[in-house]
């Protein structure tokens, strides 16, 4: 990866030493910087679980901005790479909730950041980088691109989905009720059919008994079979009007 030189903001001072006393100082500086751009404290409720994962939350019009301050102390680019990668991973998860996510670094790490961070990847995931120097100057090194689905739009979508699901559940309930009714009707019909079938069985048994005392009429069947067969042009002469054609055609069904 070639680093983030292309999108890194120019004009920042190199070699500055962090003289800020605490995380709170950092926050103050950032709040002041973004206040001047019209940002305010957040106007919406954010769950505690989410709050725990960030150092600061601000609101810019409809957008919620989250800030994570880089706390690592490193002495080489290799060490910085390991730690900043972990930081980026954590920040990436936050893009699901916030419109913009910033990682705040002391400006002493600016050069290291240039060489190890891929600006293209951060741009893709919507993470920005801010450098703060010992005098409290804030420089946005990489401006984050807002995520496409905003929190409120997402909520709106969920409501729509929930509404749709409710409608479907209502339809299913209607269908279930009508099926229940039909099932009742069908089961009644089946009972009737079963009753008729058992009556027919009894009648067949009686007829069978009567038939067994009568002589069979094979020849008559044979003659009828021959007469009712339609001639088929393609058949050889010995197959035409052959009663076996019909008998054999019905074989499997028998």
């Amino acid at each position, binding site marked *: 990866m070639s680093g983030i030189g292309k999108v890194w903001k120019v004009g920042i001072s190199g070699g500055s030493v962090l003289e800020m006393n605490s995380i709170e100082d950092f926050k103050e500086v950032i709040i002041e910087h973004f206040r001047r751009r019209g940002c305010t404290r957040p106007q919406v409720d954010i769950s505690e679980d989410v709050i725990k994962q960030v150092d600061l939350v601000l609101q810019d019009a409809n957008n919620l901005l989250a800030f994570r301050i880089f706390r690592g102390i490193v002495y080489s680019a290799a060490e910085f790479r390991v730690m900043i990668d972990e930081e980026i991973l954590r920040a990436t998860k936050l893009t699901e909730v916030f419109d913009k996510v910033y990682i705040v670094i002391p400006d002493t790490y600016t050069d290291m950041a240039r060489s190890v961070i891929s600006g293209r990847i951060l741009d893709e995931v919507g993470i920005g980088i801010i450098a703060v120097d010992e005098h409290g100057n804030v420089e946005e090194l990489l401006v984050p691109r807002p995520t496409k689905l905003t929190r409120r739009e997402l909520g709106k979508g969920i409501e729509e989905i929930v509404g749709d699901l409710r409608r479907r559940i209502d339809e299913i309930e209607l269908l279930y009720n009508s099926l229940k009714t039909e099932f009742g009707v069908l089961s009644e019909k089946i009972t009737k059919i079963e009753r008729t079938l058992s009556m027919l069985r009894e009648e067949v048994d009686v007829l069978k008994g009567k038939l067994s005392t009568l002589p069979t009429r094979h*020849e008559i069947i044979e003659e009828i079979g*021959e007469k009712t067969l339609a001639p088929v042009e*393609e058949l050889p002469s010995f*197959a035409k009007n*052959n009663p*076996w054609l019909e008998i054999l055609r019905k074989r499997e069904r028998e």
Partner: protein
Amino acid sequence: MSDLEKYKLKYAFAEDYGTSYYKFGPVGETPDIIENRGIILDKISIVSKIMGIEKNIIVGPEVATYIGHREAIGRHLVYPMRDGLVEKENERSWRVIYEITKYGLNKHRPIASDFKGFYVAAALSAIAPEYMYRRIFEIHQKIDEETGLVKAVTIIPQPLAVAIAEKSITCIVVESGHGNTQITPISRYPIREAILSLNRGGAEADAITAEILKDCGYGDLAREEKLIRCIKESIGLIPTDLQTSIEKAKKDPERFRAVFHIPNTTITIDLEENSWMRFLIGEIVFDPENEIFESFYRKGMPRPRDTMVGDTRIPGTIDMARAIIMSAERTSFEVQMYLYRKIILSGGNFSWKVPRGLEDAATDAATKIMSMLKKYNIEARVELTKDPMYSVWKGALVYAIAVPDEYEWNWESMEGWYKWR
């Protein structure tokens, strides 16, 4: 008619595996016919190689050109079927059956883009055991894998095929070949429990012809099987009533004189005063139990072997009418009277001539059986199949056309199409 039925009508194919002849062919009026035999050449001779012959099994008309001296015939010529059956372990015979089947199908290979293989109905003896069914299926499957010529195959018992060709739904088919006679009652299906098989056929008539030739001084000729058969067919007669016919022949020997000239030879056989014996040749087919034959059995003529049907022993010498009645009585009482209304005789052993001028003493097979049944108080209508040579093939073809494609082979009902693709 569905497309599949049209296809089946176009590409139905029937095969009749007779003991002597294999009849085969697609939809048409008559089949092709070749002898059911093959020559197995264990080593291909140098001359054959020079002639470009690579195969070591020869079937079809070519066989005749390979038959040399008698010894060679005995060694190489294979008749795969004996009384309609092929022995299970006789691989030489099965190889010939495979080659004959392939020859038949290849000969009729259609040149058509819609051809996806024949629907083959193969006719086998009614007493063919299950292993024969399995081998016939395997053979067709193998041929299909090699050539794509068979889409499905089914097997039909020969007597059922005869009934189909005769357009008769309820009947008894009596099929008598060289060494075997099968009596099969049919009422829409062959009634398998009632099938009765007798271990006798044309061979018994051949045997007594040979004995008569010996008695009349032609013992040297009595060893040539084919010659004996020719003599039998030429001089043999079915007596209307053996005793009466013999008496007539003895009274008027000149009228009944049996003379046979062997074509292209100087040999003439003349039974002279023994010409009455020609009635024995016909009689033995129908009633080998007659005491007149006892002297022949004692002299060494083989007595037909008994048959076991279930727990019942059927004597090999049972008269034909009694055998038909035994078979019919194994069917339901109701159907019996309808069975007797049509008894169909099929097979070469029922082809007997009545020479002009001898009608008072000789008769045909159908009339003989009818009069024999009458002695048992059975009124029956007996007729010879209209086309003794091809009736099995014709019935098998109708079967192939009619049995629905979706009816798959069922080992219980022994019906349906056996498929592998």
